[in-house]
């Protein structure tokens, strides 16, 4: 089990795969894994493990 934005989720895979599953646009997010930012270039190589806590922030346009 991992925790994404406070909600429990059964998932194994990379950050990029998690974004796909949750239907996030990878160009419009910032991802924190256990309180450290995940560099965008590392989404495909960063594995999410059991017990990990992620925050995914999605940005919308306008300003």
């Amino acid at each position: 089990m991992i925790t994404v934005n406070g909600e429990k989720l059964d998932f194994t895979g990379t950050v990029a795969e998690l974004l796909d599953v949750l239907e996030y646009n990878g160009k419009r997010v910032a991802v924190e894994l256990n309180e450290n930012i995940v560099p965008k270039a590392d989404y495909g190589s960063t594995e999410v493990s059991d017990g990990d806590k992620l925050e995914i922030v999605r940005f919308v346009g306008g300003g």
Partner: protein
Amino acid sequence: MIPSEKEVYNALAERHGEDLQKKISSATVAVCGIGGLGSNIAIALARAGVGQLHIIDFDRVDISNLNRQQYFAEQVGLYKTDAMTENLHRIAPYCRIVPDCVRLDENNIPELLRNDDIICEAFDSAEAKAVLVNSVFENFPEKYIISGSGMAGLDSANTITTRRVMKRLYICGDGQTDVDDGTGLFSSRVMVCAGHQSNMILRIIAGDFNV
């Protein structure tokens, strides 16, 4: 007759308290994008007496900006950094304005933002917002970012909030309404979001990190 620097400082210190005003006057804030959000945020921070404002934008004032951005009709066609420097100087003549007429991206962010304590994200495009937040945290994990996300249309002003979504990332807005949905941007609602952002910036300067 423009008041002296001492008179301006004393007027602020009298209202905000000397200790707090010292902190505000020595703060350096980068306002990234000086459109609807950033122009209002820069003005709020200048009025509070923030010592240095680093204003960054590549764009010129357009007639379509006048519905919500703090420029004057005769400034259409000017670079926003030039027009905003002039407007801020009229409000706060002793605030140090550092204008950078450039488009921020992954390549120039490390150099351009290294001296700013607090980073205010005030771009229009969702992708640009994400690039800024990611690049700043990848290069400067110790900095604070206050971002705006979701203030389009005319939904209730009460849906706009400040949330602390990461240790050093605060997001102001409703998190949902996207300008791409075609609902437009109104000065009133953009100013609510800009008010949230500038207020959180001042709270961080004051040493209070709770929303």
